[in-house]
């Protein structure tokens, strides 16, 4: 506003409101990216569908007091072999950012369809470049499913990452109590691609020894 008004802190001429606003917006961008430790704003090429997002937002409701520096991630599955029956699907999760942090808890959420004819035994294996053959794949979790709806399978937080950078691959394997595998094949038992596709829920914290120790003041 001209030379007569000076900034009360540094004495320089004050900024016009328009210039000050532009400066504040630029500061906000820098502050947010620095706070999230991101080099730049993410370019989201394949955002999840809105229905999937709104469920995620309900699950991660904001403001639930997560201690500072802790992070929760929901990663949605991509199926690597759509032709395979839902019960022998391989799921891929793009988890670049979460890998650099210490994993506290991991859960795989699956939605079982109402067509479930009997108790379903689910097994989750980790797939890696060296475990192409089934017998080399480490078993991560197994679960008995007796009712349709959402089921959370807790996965071990150690040993989940393998040497393959950037993605986590899981292999589903299931059997119906009292039925042969052939009976299982054509049955769609799990929602694998729609709005209720499987997703991983991870709770992480920064890596390094200090992360676990409470800072002394």
């Amino acid at each position, binding site marked *: 506003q001209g030379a007569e008004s000076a900034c009360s802190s540094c004495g320089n001429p004050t900024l016009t409101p328009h210039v000050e606003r532009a400066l504040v917006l630029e500061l906000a961008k820098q502050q947010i990216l620095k*706070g999230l430790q991101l080099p730049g704003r993410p370019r989201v090429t394949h955002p999840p569908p809105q229905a999937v997002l709104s469920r995620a937002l309900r699950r991660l409701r904001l403001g639930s007091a997560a201690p500072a520096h802790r992070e929760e991630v929901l990663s*949605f599955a991509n199926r690597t072999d759509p032709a395979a029956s839902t019960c022998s699907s391989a799921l891929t999760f793009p988890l670049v950012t979460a890998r650099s942090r210490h994993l506290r808890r991991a859960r795989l959420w699956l939605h079982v369809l109402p067509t479930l004819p009997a108790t379903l035994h689910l097994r989750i294996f980790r797939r890696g470049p060296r475990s192409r053959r089934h017998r080399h794949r480490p078993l991560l979790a197994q679960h008995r499913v007796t009712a349709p709806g959402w089921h959370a399978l807790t996965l071990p937080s150690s040993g989940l990452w393998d040497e393959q950078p950037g993605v986590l691959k899981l292999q589903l394997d299931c059997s119906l109590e009292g039925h042969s595998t052939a009976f299982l094949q054509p049955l769609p038992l799990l929602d694998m691609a729609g709005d209720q596709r499987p997703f991983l829920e991870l709770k992480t914290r920064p890596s390094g020894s200090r992360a676990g120790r409470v800072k002394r003041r």
Partner: protein
Amino acid sequence: KPTCESETPLCCRRDHYVDFRELGWRDWILQPEGYQLNYCSGQCPPHLAGSPGIAASFHSAVFNLLKANNPWPKTTSCCVPTARRPLSLLYLDGNGNVVKTDVPDMVVEACGCS
């Protein structure tokens, strides 16, 4: 917690609400819709030194030191944040994952003189 009015020359908190739509970032920051980007500005004359806007005891300790030693010290006191809170953000990372994180000390709640 003095909030600045336009003519206040003394140390105070300047409030700015930033809507993420204004940054063009609503496509990847899912929640909240914006946040308070506040900052501290204003003068800190000697009699205000150490007045953090919250705990008067610190102020009186500094004030007594000033009186006892030298009424007009060479060093200046600066207008700085004295209370801050974290900001909880829900955003999409480059792989389409939903990430919820709490960024510590993100929002300035109170200003005071160092």
